[in-house]
């Protein structure tokens, strides 16, 4: 058994070093494709984080007509709370509270504030259950706007829509690109193994004639492909961690209101992505080389 293991690794190494340029090409393609694949997952996660940050503070503002009596305000509260399946919390802010908010918002524009204060509406801050669904936000807005004594309803649905669109746009395109590149790296590994087998066809012929099993002949070639996939994945993972660290430290320096502060992935997610990249790299390498080794064994 030990002699077989020694033989397998020796032959794998010999084959790798003989096809150095092809091996390098296969490893680089695996690196790039797996880097893009991992990058896609991180970008999706960053969008999720950003969306969570934005939607964490998402509130619908239901403005009540100025001068509405307490019983009319209470009717609106009951109507809002009746939507328990879609509404999480309802907080009332009377005209005094509303004036306080306006004073903060218009601190630098006293003229506008002065114009606003005489007719300032009271308001309800409504937190929806699903904050990332712009369709739900729009539907609630239409529904609440129809309530008596409601002046208007404001929702952040456009911002949520934009972020979701961006996520889909980048997510789909980078995913398609990385899948295409993964296919390319599998093909390149397949071709590398095919070339390695062709270069050693005389040895393989002798091996078959002296009674080596097909598995014994295949194994070094399959390990070679597996190693190419794993090395590619490891290099891709290292590059991904480096780029992610670089991005995160760069974004941290941005101002709070830049809107990009949360477009980072700082939890253990990158390491989890790297783990799956290595598994995927090994899988692509093993499939590419196993197919080639089986297909071209009859040399």
């Amino acid at each position, binding site marked *: 058994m030990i002699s*077989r293991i020694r*033989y397998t690794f020796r032959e794998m190494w010999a084959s790798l070093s003989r096809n150095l340029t092809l091996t390098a090409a296969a490893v680089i393609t695996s690196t790039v494709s797996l880097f893009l694949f991992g990058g896609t997952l991180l970008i999706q996660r960053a969008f999720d984080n950003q969306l969570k940050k934005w939607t964490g503070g998402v509130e619908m503002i239901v403005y009540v007509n100025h001068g509405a009596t307490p019983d009319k305000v209470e009717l609106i509260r009951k109507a809002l709370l009746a939507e328990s399946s879609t509404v999480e919390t309802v907080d009332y802010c009377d005209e005094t509270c509303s004036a306080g908010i306006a004073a903060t918002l218009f601190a630098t524009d006293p003229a506008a504030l002065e114009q606003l204060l005489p007719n300032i509406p009271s308001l309800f801050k409504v937190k929806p259950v699903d904050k990332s669904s712009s369709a739900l936000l729009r539907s609630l807005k239409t529904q609440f706007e129809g309530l008596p004594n409601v002046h208007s309803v404001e929702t952040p649905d456009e911002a949520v829509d934009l972020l979701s669109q961006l996520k889909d746009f980048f997510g789909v395109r980078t995913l398609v690109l990385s899948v295409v590149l993964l296919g390319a790296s599998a093909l390149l590994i397949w071709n590398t193994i095919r070339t390695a087998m062709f270069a050693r066809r005389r*040895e393989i012929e002798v091996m078959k*004639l*002296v*009674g*080596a*099993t*097909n598995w014994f002949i295949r194994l070094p070639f399959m390990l070679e492909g597996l190693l190419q996939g794993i090395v590619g994945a490891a290099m891709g993972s290292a590059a991904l961690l480096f780029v992610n660290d670089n991005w995160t430290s760069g974004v941290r320096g941005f101002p709070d209101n830049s809107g990009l502060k949360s477009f980072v992935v700082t939890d253990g997610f990158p390491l989890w992505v790297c783990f799956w990249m290595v598994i995927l790299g090994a899988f692509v390498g093993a499939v590419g080389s196993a197919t080639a080794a089986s297909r071209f064994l009859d040399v």
Partner: protein
Amino acid sequence: MIRLENVTKSYSTEVTALRDANFDIAKGEFVFLVGPSGSGKSTMLRLMNRQERPEKGAVWVAGRNINDMPDSKVPHLRRNIGNIFQDYKLLAGKTVFENIAFALEVIGKPRHVIRQQVPAVLELVGLGGKQERFPHQLSGGEQQRVSIARAFVNRPLILLADEPTGNLDPATGEGIMRLLDRINKTGTTVVMATHDQRIVNMMRKRVIQFDRGVIVRDQARGVYE
């Protein structure tokens, strides 16, 4: 040891390499397959180690019909059959020792067995002391001896030799034949394809003659006609 029953092998509709071939080869026999190029000698050898399969008939080796043998069992069959070629098929990047050890290594023999068997077989073929040389540092006759050593190192039941003296001068060829005869005397069945008239006449072994895929003569202690 080897039996062919009504074996027919074609490579295309126009080319029939063997037609309705029948013969038995007993254990320990030395048999020459003779005939002109393209008469079916090499095809016969390729049928015996399952490199080819016949369209019709059965090839029995060591009591088993190897046509019905599953592919997974073929390597085990081949461990009992040594192969010798006209062009030696040695691996240029390996030394004499490594070329022979390779045959044992790929069938999973442990290192201590390899260290023991390789020098012994090199002594047998007369190449003791040349185990560190590379094939290009050897003469044609020596390279063929390495090829024989590689084929015999696993002590197979059968040796199949395809024109082993084809690239050698007469004196060297005779040396190779003496070596094959010695191996045959250890009980190994030797089947050799050749059109070397001088060697067949010198050895006076059983001769099976082919002509355009048909066996036209099967003669004990025969000569080349």
